[in-house]
């Protein structure tokens, strides 16, 4: 005989549910407690680890990147402040500060020639060339980190991409989407004609002219009138990289 569900049954079920959820909360709280302890321990361990391997961190870029990632994962930002205990431990405060100054220096010195746009690889190449022998090696990840640290300076420093090209921009300027499209079009050849743009995007003359004029005005492109009827527009920032790879290819 099936027992009917009575008031008593419902009450008992409700009580059970409450008890269960109480137990659940208790469990999850205990779990969180445990996790907290673990993280605290991990932080301690990480500190010990960093202290022990400080020299490797400064000298080995791949290792440095890994430690940075680990720090970020557990909510330790070694770069958030130069005075933070982690940055002191890592000894990276000075490293990034120094790198930041070098990056600014290179960007400012070449701004009038490339319109404040430099290929990331080119920047890396120049950094490596100018840094003293025996100083810590630099990798792309270091540049990314440093540039994100330069944000408070409001210099417009950021990394922008055109197709496969990663560029460091060092002027506060928003490139409109037309310009970005043309840049992407020129990413491999490092040059374009107005005709190229018309064929690729089907824009009318006015639109092409205003886009090219903007790019000339901001100094990103230079004009080559070798063929007077069809002048070519060259992106200096793309060219340096192309040129260095060409030189390397020729040397081989």
């Amino acid at each position, binding site marked *: 005989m099936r027992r009917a569900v009575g008031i008593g049954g419902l009450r008992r079920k409700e009580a059970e549910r409450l008890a269960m959820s109480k137990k659940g909360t208790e469990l999850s709280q205990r779990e969180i407690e445990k996790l907290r302890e673990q993280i605290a321990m991990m932080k301690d361990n990480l500190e010990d680890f960093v202290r022990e391997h400080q020299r490797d961190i400064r000298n080995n870029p791949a290792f440095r990147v890994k430690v940075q990632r680990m720090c970020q994962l557990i909510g330790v930002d070694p770069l958030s402040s130069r005075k933070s205990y982690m940055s002191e431990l890592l000894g990276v405060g000075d490293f990034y500060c120094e790198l930041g100054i070098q990056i600014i220096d290179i960007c400012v010195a070449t701004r*009038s*020639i490339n319109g404040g746009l430099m290929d990331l690889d080119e920047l890396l190449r120049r950094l490596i060339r100018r840094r003293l022998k025996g100083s810590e090696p630099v990798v792309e990840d270091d540049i990314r980190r440093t540039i994100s640290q330069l944000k408070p300076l409001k210099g417009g420093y950021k990394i922008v991409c055109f197709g496969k090209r990663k560029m460091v921009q060092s002027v506060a300027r928003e490139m409109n989407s037309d310009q970005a499209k043309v840049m992407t079009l020129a990413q491999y050849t490092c*040059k374009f004609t107005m005709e190229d743009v018309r064929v690729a995007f089907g824009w009318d003359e006015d639109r092409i002219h205003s886009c090219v004029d903007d790019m*000339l*005005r901001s*100094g990103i492109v*230079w*004009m*080559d*009138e*070798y063929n007077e009827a069809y*002048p*070519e527009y*060259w992106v*200096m920032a793309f*060219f*340096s990289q192309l*040129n*260095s790879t060409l030189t390397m290819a020729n040397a081989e």
Partner: protein
Amino acid sequence: MSNTTAVPTPGAFQFPEIYNFPPLFTRQPNESTWQEQRRQWCDLILAYYRHNRLYSLTLAEAITEPPFTNRQIHRSLRVDVLRELVDDLVKQGNASWTGAKNAKDSCLVLWRKPEVWASMIYQWANERGLFNTVLTVFELANGDDTVGQEFHNLDSVTLRRALDVLQSQGKAQLFVGTSDEDMGVKLFA
């Protein structure tokens, strides 16, 4: 790499990277880019002329040769653009127009200022004890005594400029001859 001491290297001139950038040979329409372009060209001209110890520049001829023509990328600078560049060099004191007045067809490239040549010559004369002796200008530039000196084989117009400087400083007296070369000079303390 290890052999780069102060000795002037007679090897090929090392062109900067931008030399293969085709737009370098077109006058840029954007003013601030043009300013940068002029700076690049002026540096290049002075470095090239210094490296090859060249002194005079005839615009119409020069544009068919390096550095104003880059055969590798088939680009040449236009004469009127070069004229603007020389105007810039003249303003900086690194060039001076020669030839017919206002023609602006040829110039001297002063990769070393006449004042610097002047003090080199003066110092040399001092060391050799040649003060108060009349020397010919030809002797100064081409004589055996000046072999190995920076001003040996110095172009006659540039040399004359340097001697003019010494005269105006009261350190030399020039004696005019029938030509620039048999002109004489006496230096004194």
